[in-house]
């Protein structure tokens, strides 16, 4: 036998042994690919089942659907196939102070068998007639597209740029109407307040007729106590995380407070203050005009104008007992111990309408009462509007906080 023909003999060239390692590698990769595909399939099964069968999965899906709509202030295109068609209904409520408008945004379809009924949310957006405001309409429609029924409440006082504690009755009645709205589960109705609307939300949520039925209270840009709000305005400074910082408000809260408190001032004084702050800062009063005001009216002027930051305590003391009682009546602090629903606070940390120190005080009070609450500060909001041109890191950080709070709200309907 020729050694050249003996398999394994020295010098014999054969293609087979060199090819074996390559074929083995290919088979290994193929094997790995099979297992990767199986793992992906299993993950798809888990993810799909979690997002449809589990309440917490459905909550996450709902919150993830709502979040882009809020942040972009419009409906993302990819949501159009899965968004529920929405119907807008306008109802009115006759009250002693006039017609209260109820703008209801609801999915047009009936409630699905799981969970059997829809979540409702009563919303008050603050002073002014905000019913046609694009961001307000977008917000209500975004929630409705995610399966919620949203009822916006606008009272005559709010349209007059003032807060009236008497509107509490109308808000309670609106809440009860929402509880009985078609497809809404009576135990799945919460409340959402923005800015001055938060005070009415808290006053109504503390009402004995409904306090045990409110599923949640969510407040954006809320104030806690009208007196401390006046104090902050008067000093043009707020205490945030224990540090005093200067703070300059825009004209809107001054106008709202002047309009709200004016009816409790002597005739003429109230109208003058409303006129003054409607043109703020241009319409500052002369010393002659100030001299003609009643002491409590002058004190209120100085607090709102912020022109006597060192005399805030004296100016607050100059307010009459009636005025002080009115301030207490309009404060969520007066009813915080009567709230039974969990409270979720959101606040723009550079808010120039209501200082963030107010929500911090609210959170501190809730903590002292061992009340269920959550509180987050944001940079993506400008008071209640979504800020344009926010950078990605801010968007991601605040988006994660907003998702957390949205999940708590959406949990109720899942």
């Amino acid at each position, binding site marked *: 036998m020729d050694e050249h023909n003996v398999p394994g003999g020295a010098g014999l060239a054969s293609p087979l042994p060199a090819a074996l390692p390559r074929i083995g590698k290919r088979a290994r990769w193929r094997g790995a690919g099979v297992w990767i595909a199986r793992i992906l*399939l299993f993950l798809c*099964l888990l993810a799909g089942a979690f997002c*449809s*069968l589990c309440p917490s999965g459905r909550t996450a899906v709902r919150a993830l659907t709502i979040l882009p709509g809020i942040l972009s202030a419009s409906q993302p295109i990819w949501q*159009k196939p899965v*968004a529920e068609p929405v119907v807008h209904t306008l109802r009115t409520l006759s009250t002693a102070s006039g017609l209260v408008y109820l703008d209801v945004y609801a999915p047009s379809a009936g409630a699905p068998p799981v969970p059997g009924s829809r979540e409702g949310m009563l919303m008050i957006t603050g002073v002014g007639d905000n019913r046609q405001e694009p961001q307000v309409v977008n917000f209500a429609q975004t929630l409705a597209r*995610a399966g919620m029924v949203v009822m916006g409440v606008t009272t005559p006082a709010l349209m007059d740029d003032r807060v009236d504690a008497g509107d509490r009755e109308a808000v309670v009645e609106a809440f009860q109407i929402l509880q009985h709205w078609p497809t809404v589960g009576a135990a799945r109705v919460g409340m959402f307040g923005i800015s001055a609307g938060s005070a009415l939300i808290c006053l109504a949520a503390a009402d004995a007729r409904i306090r045990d039925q409110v599923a949640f209270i969510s407040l954006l840009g809320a104030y806690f106590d009208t007196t401390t709000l006046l104090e902050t305005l008067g000093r043009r400074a707020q205490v945030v995380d224990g540090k005093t910082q200067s703070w300059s408000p825009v004209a809107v809260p001054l106008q709202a407070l002047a309009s709200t408190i004016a009816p409790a001032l002597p005739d003429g004084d109230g109208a003058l203050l409303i006129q003054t702050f409607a043109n703020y800062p241009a319409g500052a009063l002369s010393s002659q005009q100030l001299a003609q005001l009643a002491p409590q009216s002058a004190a209120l002027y100085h607090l709102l104008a912020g022109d006597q930051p060192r005399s805030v305590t004296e100016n607050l003391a100059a307010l009459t007992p009636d005025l002080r009682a009115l301030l207490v009546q309009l404060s969520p602090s007066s009813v915080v111990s009567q709230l039974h629903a969990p409270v979720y606070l959101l606040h723009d940390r550079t808010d120039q309408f209501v200082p963030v120190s107010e929500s911090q005080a609210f959170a501190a009070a809730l903590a002292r009462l061992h009340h269920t609450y959550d509180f987050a500060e944001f940079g993506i909001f400008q008071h209640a509007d979504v800020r344009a041109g926010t950078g990605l890191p801010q968007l991601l950080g605040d988006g994660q906080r907003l998702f957390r709070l949205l999940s708590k709200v959406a949990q109720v309907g899942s």
Partner: protein
Amino acid sequence: MATFALLLSWAALGLLIALLALAARLKPAKWRRAGLLMFGLGTGFAGGLLGFWLFGRLFSCPAALWCAALAVCLPAAYTGLRKRLVGVV
């Protein structure tokens, strides 16, 4: 248009799951590739319909996903179980 896009997305999810099943070698020997793809498409569609009715529009796509994933695994699971119990390929 939105509803058509939704139906299409259920079918697409089912097809995607069937492609994954092919890559995972879960196709029974007697089945053709096209058969598994159609099966995945069909079960994705059916799962989406079930999810739409049971949970609402928003959750129909996750339902399509898990229904298709479960369905494409069943033939391979059945074959494997039969092999173990009966010892027949």
